[in-house]
């Protein structure tokens, strides 16, 4: 079979499998308002495992708010969030993170006083256990765990191509590399679901190429990836499923082709190239 044939075959296979699999992430009429503004209005969708899903929408549509609510930074006002069939709405952010949801931030939110390596190692926090006394007295188990985490983190850095920068300070890195640190940090959580908030904003074309390759590689390794982006060519080329948000409501969902030709989507983006 040639390449496209193999792809088609896999697609058929996964379509059947979808019907039986439960969603990795399921949002059910999720709502969040700030004062008078409805940032999220009964948003509902399902995210299947091992897919690359993008969310697009005009500025202010509520996309970042959605990630913030799912990851527990904000509390929802109504609606449900299920992750791996578990109801996580209302849990504190650190609990949700330890269940396997990793994320990056639009404005990176890196830890300025830590090196690149240390930033990424923070991601590994939930996968280690040493406590205050273990760390303070440098007991053997703490030392061993530190070495293990360090090695794993270097691997993550290598995956994003930053292993040479491990001991640099954050402030010395250009934007593209800072974004990669954010991703490495999230990867160190070994999450099931990775939520990326505008990961390629401000990057040069060749950096976006590298990033595309990275995403595809991560997807092949079993990660489910949820991307918020404005860069349409990027979204269209990488997504299996696209969800469109406008003023807090989901107005379209489907394959990139379907969404591209959707009337409401075009309207929402009036004037923009889709």
């Amino acid at each position, binding site marked *: 079979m040639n390449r496209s044939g193999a792809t088609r075959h896999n697609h058929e296979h996964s379509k059947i499998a979808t019907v039986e699999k439960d969603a990795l992430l399921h949002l059910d009429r999720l709502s969040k308002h700030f004062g008078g503004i409805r940032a999220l209005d009964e948003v509902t969708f399902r995210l299947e495992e091992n897919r690359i899903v993008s969310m697009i929408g005009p500025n202010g549509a509520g996309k970042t708010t959605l990630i913030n609510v799912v990851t527990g930074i904000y*509390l*929802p*006002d*109504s609606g449900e969030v299920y992750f791996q069939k578990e*109801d996580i*709405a*209302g*849990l*504190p952010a650190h*609990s949700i993170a330890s269940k396997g949801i990793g994320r990056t931030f639009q404005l990176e939110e890196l830890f300025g006083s830590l090196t690149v390596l240390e930033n990424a190692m923070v991601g590994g926090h939930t996968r280690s256990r040493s406590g205050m006394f273990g760390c303070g007295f440098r007991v053997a188990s703490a030392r061993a765990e530190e070495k293990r985490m360090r090695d794993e983190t270097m691997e993550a850095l290598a995956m994003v191509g930053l292993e040479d920068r491990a001991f640099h300070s954050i402030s010395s890195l250009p934007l593209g590399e800072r974004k990669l640190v954010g991703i490495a940090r999230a990867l160190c959580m070994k999450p099931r679901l990775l939520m990326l908030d505008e990961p390629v904003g401000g990057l040069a074309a060749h950096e976006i190429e590298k990033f595309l390759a990275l995403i595809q590689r991560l997807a092949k390794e079993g990660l489910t990836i949820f991307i918020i982006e404005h860069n349409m060519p990027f979204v269209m080329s990488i997504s299996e499923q696209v969800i469109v948000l406008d003023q807090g409501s989901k107005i379209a969902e489907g394959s990139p082709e379907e969404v591209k030709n959707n009337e409401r989507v075009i309207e929402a983006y009036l004037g923009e190239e889709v």
Partner: protein
Amino acid sequence: MTLLSLIVQYAISGITAGSIYAIVGICWTVVYLIAQVLNFTTGEFVMLGGMLAWVFLGAGFGLVSAGILATACTVGIAMILERFVVRPIRYPTEMIYMMMTIASASVIKGISLIGFGSETRTIEPFIAAKPIRIFGASLTPQVICVVGVLILVMSGLSLFIHRTVFGKALRASAMNLTGARLVGIDINKFRLFCFGLAGGLGALAGIAITPITFTGYSIGLMTGMKGLVAAIVAGWSMTGTVLAGLALGLLEGFGAGFISTGWKDAFALFIMIVFLILKTIPLSRRLVRKKP
């Protein structure tokens, strides 16, 4: 004394102290709202007002001139503080501002000790008249002066903030600093003004209260903290601070009178801590469906 006269007496001393706390609270609030600085030298302004008034009176000036000179000097010191200590900070953070003003308070206190000695000082009451008897309690004219100063300060500030352009600009800055800057308001000048204002008001309060409670190089800390308590409890609102200051004074007056004097100061601080903590508990009902 009968119970009634006791109550009235405590109320009188409470309102006296409360008036001072109210004014000091306004000094904190003004600087905090405009400059986002917790100015720990506020208490020292009060101390300086009384001390310098004593100095000038001793040098032969009349009451009014001594008062004006003392206030002017304190305003000058406050402005020097802003210009040379607060403004030059290169990477301003809340903590650095705090440390700077704490350090400055220390400096002022120490210099006062060297310059004015360690004994408590006092000045003559403004009006030489006999105290009035109310329900068996004694109301001295000085108390009326203190309350009078408070009323003057309140009305003066209110007029200034609501009627003058400068005052309106001040309110605008307090509400939205960036917006204010964008319309051309010079923040440095404003900060300078607010520090000076705090210095002047503090000095006035200090001068007014000295005939009653005396003054000394070390009174700055507690007086300042009481004002801070009032400002915090009131959530940095101007009228709220006045009310909170008065309430604090009254609570203290009755507490010290009927319970004990030693813990009086601790009481005010305890209230501040409780209020600060209570404010962190959200009032609005949020959708917290489960605990972790």
